């Protein structure tokens, strides 16, 4: 058991990538460090466990990255996905710093590999972790243990005592026992609140009960709420989250990447009324998959069914759950509990509206419907070849955007724009400052790594003085 009577130089709240980067940097700067991880050891690492790469600026090919990816292009990509909902100063600093983190990560035992098959589009911009995010998390914990960082699992921080911009102590439930821990500085890296259905209900009502949480159940936003309650300045829209339409049969939490479904462009998608409601062929899937979480969330019962026929069976990644198949649309309706007459009508209307064209799954092929509302603008082919193959979809929440505001030293900013003295933040809890909207593959890990390192350094510096 750790010594809760001791006053550590740095107490890190959280146990994911950002937390471990902060802990290791602080320890390497000579500070005594304790890590307070809510999860048990087996589930340590927050959502970093589910990640697989980090977006890194580089001016020439590296062992795992091709060509170059320079600051301005990186910034343009960020500007585009956020629609300007970012902070240029913090963002550019993060981008520049991303070109320097990989050697340090490798020193910490993180191993990289060339981009995975089927992710060629990321081979220039994103460095993949060998084995994925859990292997990265393992490497950081092993390094932390070697450096003598005290790690507490099953340690949920309930509140932080913030007095006039000065953090004094935290109250913890450690293996179920109440504890108070004092420290000279605190780094809060405890993630967003997507694992807290009750909080999501504040904005989404009962619909939130039907949301699935793709990652860790430990991202409950307890520290986020606690800090905002004590006058810390917030960033990001509290009502917004990143979500995708995943297999409705996934576990409530932690189903991970394998629950994704990428068949929507080749399908028609119907709701509980057995009616279509959105253009399934609007754009290529990498540009549309994050839209469908929201779209399905707005449907009655927060559920939808995609239907393809035998022609399209091989065009998408196999799903982890078996497809629901039937030889007629009527039979399929019976299996998924929709009104058979309506579903048949929907399919017939769609088939009648499909125009002839040259189908091509690899690009926008303009195979479309005429006179159908909503239209399908690409990959529209008649559903006429049994068996019909169906998957149910529900919104799967990846992360929330609400966070605390920080400055370039990763110091948490109070509502009156004054920085706190000894409270730092890194990772998802402050990522909304930079990624206020949208999604950029691997950028969450970049923010976590860059700000984790800064927070650890700055906390150690403060503790020494």
């Amino acid at each position, binding site marked *: 058991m750790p010594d809760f009577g001791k006053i550590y130089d740095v107490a890190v709240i959280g146990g994911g990538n950002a937390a471990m980067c902060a802990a290791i940097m602080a320890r390497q700067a000579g500070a005594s460090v304790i890590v307070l991880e809510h999860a048990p050891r087996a589930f340590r690492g927050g959502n970093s466990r589910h990640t697989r790469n980090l977006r890194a600026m580089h001016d020439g090919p590296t062992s795992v990255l091709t060509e170059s990816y320079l600051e301005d292009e990186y910034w343009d990509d960020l500007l585009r996905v956020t629609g300007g909902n970012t902070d240029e100063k913090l963002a550019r600093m993060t981008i520049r710093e991303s070109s320097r983190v990989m050697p340090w990560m490798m020193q910490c*035992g993180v191993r990289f590999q060339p981009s995975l*098959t089927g992710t060629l589009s990321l081979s220039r911009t994103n460095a993949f972790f060998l084995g994925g995010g859990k292997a990265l998390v393992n490497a950081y914990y092993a390094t932390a243990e070697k450096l003598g960082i005290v790690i507490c699992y099953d340690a949920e921080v309930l509140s932080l005592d913030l007095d006039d911009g000065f953090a004094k102590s935290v109250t913890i439930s450690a293996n179920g026992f109440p504890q108070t821990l004092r420290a000279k500085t605190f780094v809060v890296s405890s993630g967003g609140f997507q694992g807290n259905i009750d909080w999501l209900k504040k904005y989404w009502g009962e619909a939130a009960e039907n949301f699935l949480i793709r990652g860790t159940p430990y991202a409950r936003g307890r520290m986020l709420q606690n800090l905002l309650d004590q006058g810390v300045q917030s960033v990001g829209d509290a009502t917004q989250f990143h979500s995708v339409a995943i297999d409705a049969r996934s576990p409530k939490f932690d189903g991970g990447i394998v629950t994704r479904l990428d068949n929507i462009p080749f399908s028609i998608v119907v709701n509980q009324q057995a009616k279509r409601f959105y253009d399934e062929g609007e754009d290529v899937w990498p540009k549309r998959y994050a839209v469908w979480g929201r779209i399905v969330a707005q449907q009655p019962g927060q559920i939808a069914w995609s239907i393809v026929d035998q022609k399209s069976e091989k065009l998408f990644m196999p799903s982890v759950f078996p497809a629901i198949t039937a030889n007629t649309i009527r039979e399929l309706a019976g299996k998924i509990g929709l009104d058979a007459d309506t579903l048949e009508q929907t399919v017939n209307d769609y088939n009648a509206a499909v125009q002839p064209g040259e189908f091509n799954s690899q690009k926008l092929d303009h195979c479309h419907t005429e006179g159908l509302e909503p239209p399908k603008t690409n990959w529209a082919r008649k559903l006429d070849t049994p068996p019909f193959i169906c998957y149910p979809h529900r919104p799967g929440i990846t992360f929330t955007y609400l966070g605390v505001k920080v400055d370039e030293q990763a110091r948490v900013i109070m509502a009156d724009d004054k920085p706190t003295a000894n409270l730092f933040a890194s990772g998802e809890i402050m990522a909304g400052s930079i990624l206020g909207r949208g999604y950029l593959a691997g950028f969450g890990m970049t923010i976590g790594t860059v700000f984790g390192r800064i927070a650890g350094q700055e906390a150690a510096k403060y503790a020494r003085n």
Partner: protein
Amino acid sequence: MHATEATQAAQRSIDICNACRYCEGYCAVFPAMMLQRAFTTEDMSYLANLCHNCNGCYHACQFSPPHAYGINLPQQFAEVRVESYAEYAWPKVMAVAFARNGRTMLALTAAALAFVLVAVLLLVPNAALFGAQSGAGAFYRLIPWGVMASFAGATLLFSLLALLMAARNFWRDTASPLTRTMSLSALRTALGDAATLRYLGGGHEGGGCNDLDSSFSQTRRKLHHFMMYGFFLCFASTSVATLMDHFLGWEAPYSWYSLPVILGTLGGIGMLIGCVGLIWVKIATDPAPVARRVLGGDYALLLMLALVAKTGLLLLLFRATPAMGVLLAVHLGSVLALFLALPYGKFIHGILRFTALLKAAVEREGRSVVSG
């Protein structure tokens, strides 16, 4: 291959792995998996025999136990592997040897030792057996060359045949449309993969695998090299000695600086280091990805190899003393047991692993031809 609880568990995991694919960089299993969308029991046999049990995918898995998905490929594949050994055993009736392989091997070793010892006691005069022998043909005064050679030759040839038949059964059972065209380059790739234990190397940056826990090391790979190349050196020693005896008329024992003794000594020491080290790794490793059910057979082979190496080295050290007679009998008994055990114990993994590597190399080549 029959569907069993073990193959079904592996199949369920592989369905999840194929939707994730984060482990692609570790070894040959995942690229082989990714060539397919749906899996059969035979595919499980193939992938299980391709798996080198490096534990990389277990420690990197965000879905390993206690996660609800409970993915534990090293453990699930180890169980499928042992079932596949029984499935492909030749002759078929010998499948029974794999049910409780540790005990079977122990009984076999005891029987072989007893057989040789009893035969020697009954047939060799006490004065010869318990007296010091020296000079050319010292061993053969106790056990005639012809008896030694015919026992060793017959058992070894039979075992090699049985191993080849098992490999053939495996190849046929797991054949797929992708494995039609064999090529020399695929054979070269597979030989290289096996000789270097490439897939215990840890992928792109070659940091090794998770021998003991989630940290990376090359320990297990190096120990296996000691054991495997030690075994080959001993085999070379015996072969050279046979040639020297048969064609040159030089009878054993040979001097300390002769080729057979140098090869055998180095090989024996290598095997001992490898076997003891691998036993240590098995004891010290994180038990979570280990299949307890198959450990008996694993330990049995390592102990049998260590026994052959140790008795061989002891025989060398004490060959000029009255202990030589009994040591020779014990050494030959342990060699007899090992030869008989080759196709019916853990040793079979070598030939099936190689066959799986060959199949993987062939399929990769076929794949790159198809996709241009």
